[in-house]
């Protein structure tokens, strides 16, 4: 009888622990959503000052970037010069504003610096420059360079016997580039299971060249493939934690260009255009 009571108490404790964990996860989720909203507001405010930037592209990837920097990369401004950390390359360099907002949130530079975006003497340009900005690992902008660079880093890590991973975000339009498919061959041939390529699949260039079934394509190139909703943090995190024995990992992230702002969601007119004061007010209100 005593044993039964003790067992029931233990079960109750487990249930309480699980509820607490669930509550904590929910709190964390709400907190993450609020942080992302805050960063989006900061991006709009920075753009308002210069009229520069690719707002929809930034909002397409900002959830993924936040999960990466908050939970996966283990990169901070204190270990940036060290080899024994994970690495990240933003291959679609025009999403730079999202990267800047995340780096600023992670104290690589101040919010004041973020507000100087794209000014003549600002280190923060329309595309990221690794020689100017702490935390930016590669200067990208011309599409199709970041993934093969990430492959070189992953191969270099294998050569040096370092047990960390290299992550990169590639745009779906960027997948038009031949170097992406050269890279797809190279990564699987060299069994780079320390490489994670996230494709920001927002269908922005379907109007020019449809990519068809990306999952089948990468799978046939010898990659481990998973598909996630690129705006749901738990799904992103689950995908990022997959490790294959020998294959590189591609995460096809279904995303919405301009996510969170009705007037720009999937509206190509906004690809490279800053908001007016009036438009910014509407956007900021939507992000409250």
């Amino acid at each position, binding site marked *: 009888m005593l044993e039964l009571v003790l067992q029931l108490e233990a079960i109750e404790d487990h249930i309480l622990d699980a509820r607490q964990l669930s509550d904590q996860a929910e709190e964390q989720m709400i907190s993450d959503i609020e942080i992302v909203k805050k960063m989006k507001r900061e991006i709009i405010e920075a753009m308002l000052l210069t009229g520069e930037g690719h707002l929809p592209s930034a909002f397409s990837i900002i959830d993924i970037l936040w999960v990466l920097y908050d939970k996966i990369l283990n990169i901070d401004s204190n270990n940036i010069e060290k*080899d024994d950390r994970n*690495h990240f390359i933003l291959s679609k360099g025009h999403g730079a504003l999202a990267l800047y907002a995340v780096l600023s949130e992670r104290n690589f530079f101040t919010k004041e610096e973020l507000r100087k975006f794209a000014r003549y003497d600002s280190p923060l340009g329309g595309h990221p420059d*690794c*020689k100017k900005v702490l935390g930016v*690992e*590669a*200067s990208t*902008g*011309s599409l*199709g*360079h*970041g*993934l*093969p*660079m*990430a*492959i*070189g*880093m*992953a*191969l*270099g*890590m294998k*050569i*040096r016997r*370092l047990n960390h991973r*290299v992550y990169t975000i590639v745009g779906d339009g960027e997948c038009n580039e*031949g*170097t992406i498919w*050269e*890279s797809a*061959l*190279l990564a699987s*041939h060299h069994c780079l299971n320390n490489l994670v390529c996230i494709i920001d699949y927002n269908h922005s260039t379907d109007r020019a060249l449809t990519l068809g079934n990306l999952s089948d394509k990468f799978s046939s190139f010898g990659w481990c493939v998973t598909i996630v909703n690129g705006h749901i943090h738990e799904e992103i995190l689950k995908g990022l934690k997959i490790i294959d024995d020998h294959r590189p990992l591609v995460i096809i992230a279904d995303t919405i260009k301009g996510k969170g702002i009705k007037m720009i969601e999937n509206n190509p007119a906004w690809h490279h255009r800053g908001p007016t004061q009036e438009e910014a007010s509407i956007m900021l209100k939507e992000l409250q």
Partner: protein
Amino acid sequence: MRKQFVKTAEAVAEHDERLVLLLGDIGVFGFQNVFSKYPERVYNIGICEQAFTSLAAGISKMNLIPLVHSIAPFVVERCFEQLKIDFGYQRLRGSFVSIGASYDYAALGCTHHCPGDIALLKTIPGMNIIVPGSDRDFDVLFRAAYSGHNPNYFRLTEKGHALDVPVTFRRGMKIREGRDGTVVAIGPMLERVVNACINVDVTILYYTTLSPFDGELLSATFQKGKIAVVEPFYEGTMSYDIVSFLQGKSINMLSVGVPRRFLINYGSATDQDVACGLDVAGIKTRLERFFNAKK
């Protein structure tokens, strides 16, 4: 020069574990010994030059030193943007060693010619451009340059010269002194220039490092008058460097190089030399006409 490249690369790989050799499915047989000795640092990457140039940049970012090799048009022209952005803009360490020069593969036609490589690479700030004239030049210059902080381009040819000249990375050198003007001989052109200048009394300067250009030597040597540049690539490629270091001086300049047109004939590199006026006789004719005019 390719055999010397293999020897030098093997020797450097032996004492520097940072060196990673990347081949574009070119010269693989020659490197078989290196492949078996250092399998973790030698790769035949395949025929995907653009991706593998960026891949080399990633290798460099991991504090290793990539050494990339293929035929000149595939190293430079096909991958120019990768060289410009990934290595030039990001100021990454790495060496690119090409073979074939302007038309060593004459019989293969224009797709395998590359007389425009140096002119193109000179638009990339910080890119070291090295044109060895001989096997020994390559060995000395590669060892001096490969581990520096800038990207390097080494242009190899199968038609190097046989002169023994003590070259130094980043420096030109005076081969002989004369009174009627100056001839700048670039890399493999040196021996032909020496042989072509039998009847002209000129100073001969020898350059193997083209970027950065040793302007000090040129401006200290040349005061005024005639200067000829004999270059194994498109004629006029070195004009900007020559003119910018001789500002304020009165000069009369001749460029002897590969004519700026597609070389649509085949044959051998020697046939092309004759057709381009870059054999000893052709160079001699043009230099004598230039330096002996209105004497």
